[in-house]
């Protein structure tokens, strides 16, 4: 009969009125992201071996880093000098953390990046080091040299 469809529809909306709401109280109650969530990176400069893997894999070329000789003459290799991520173009694709052999750069669950100026989105090593909350536990860096390849 004509009209039954409409009445059924009205029934569904009426029933929904009393159902549980799914609105999140977001700014008041922070959103808990699962551990694998890809948020803003955390960088531990002490772990970094300046291998440049992250800068090379980055599809948007948003990472720039430089190294300097190790100040401790006993040790070989380099230490990190500067490390900048341009979050204007970073797509949080997870590839940099995937290839990092020492897990120096890892994802965190923090995702709030809004700023009034574009300049604020250019984050340096100190800022990234300070972003040390909600760091991801399992990084699964399958692309990194020692575990990847013909494993």
């Amino acid at each position, binding site marked *: 009969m004509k009209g039954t469809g409409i009445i059924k529809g009205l029934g569904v909306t009426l029933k929904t009125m009393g159902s549980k709401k799914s609105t999140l109280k977001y700014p008041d109650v922070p959103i808990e992201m699962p551990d694998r969530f890809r948020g803003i990176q955390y960088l531990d400069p002490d772990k970094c071996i300046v291998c*440049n893997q992250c800068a*090379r894999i980055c599809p948007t070329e948003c990472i*720039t880093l*430089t190294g300097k000789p190790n100040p401790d003459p006993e040790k070989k290799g380099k230490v990190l*000098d500067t490390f900048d991520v341009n979050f204007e173009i970073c797509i949080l694709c997870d590839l940099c953390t995937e290839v990092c052999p020492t897990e120096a750069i890892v994802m965190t669950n923090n995702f709030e990046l809004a700023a009034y100026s574009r300049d604020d989105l250019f984050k340096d090593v100190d800022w990234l080091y300070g972003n040390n909350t909600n760091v991801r536990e399992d990084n699964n860096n399958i692309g990194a*040299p020692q575990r990847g*390849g*013909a494993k």
Partner: protein
Amino acid sequence: MSGEDRREESAKLNETKGEERRETEEEAPTEGSAGTSAEGAGTTPTDAPAEGDNREDVPSAEADSGAAGAGADPNGRKPEGEEQASAPKQVQAAAEPKTGPVDAKQAAEGEPAAPPAKAAEEAAAPAASSAGGEAPVRRQETDEEKAARRKAALEAREAAKAAAAQGAARPEAAGGAAAAGRNPAAAAGRAAPAAADAPPPPPSPNQPRLDRAAQLLRELVNEDAVEEASINEPNDHLPTLVIKRDRWQACAGLFRSHPELNIDYLRNVAGVDHETHMEVIYHLLSLDSGHNYAVKVRTDRESPSVPSVTPIWPTANWNEREIYDLLGIDFPGHPDLRRIMMPDDWVGHPLRKDYAPLDPEV
């Protein structure tokens, strides 16, 4: 630290890393090939040749699902057994809305009866004799390939360095360097399959279809219509024809209207800039029989033009516009050839390999 320093540094890193990588790379395929060929020798004789001829794709599909794969398709790779089993079904499924699928059905059922048997026969001999001999041959090839590639990579790197040294990389220089780097690589790429073709592989299950299509085109259009005909093996043995540009319109008409081919569905049109020439690739499909073909039409780079097939398959309309827009290939006969992605006043065709943006800031 300036950008140049960084680049140098990363180049050095590249070198060291590259060596490591090469080692692992060399290991991986040999391991894989040895494993598979041994497996092939151990199992039924039909398994081995199917793997032997696909040297480009070493670990084939059957191992991922041992029982299902081996049971369903004796060739190891899926196309033959699978496609034939499903082809008549498709015909039936598609038969309701269509008219006159009878001959297509016959073609589908009659044709494939022969090749598997033939393939099996021919396969058996080399498999028995040269199952052991396969692996070293292949390793040699990969080594050759590696050497060529290493050389190419080195050259490319040098070229890149040179370009970088010039400071603000001017587009011509960069383009030239890139081209210089690419050409040897391309040459190496071409050389490798040539070397690989030494032992004649058993004919592909789709060979008769390819031959038949080529024959039809030669007979009904013109003797010189088909320039090349080959089977693209990794791509499910896709019959691939290279058609002379001037004959393409007539050939397309034949593909569409000939009851045996009956290509009613144009899957995809893609343009490629091969630097020496331009190429337009049409992926054709007959919904009745489920047969796929790929057709390539080559044209020169200076004033590229390929006859439009929009009157035959309306699908081509926007695809050709896109190719015109991004590669600059003209399609005479197209009803409305305008830019589609880029703004109307855009200068240049971005997908060309030598494209340099008018305004590098954009």
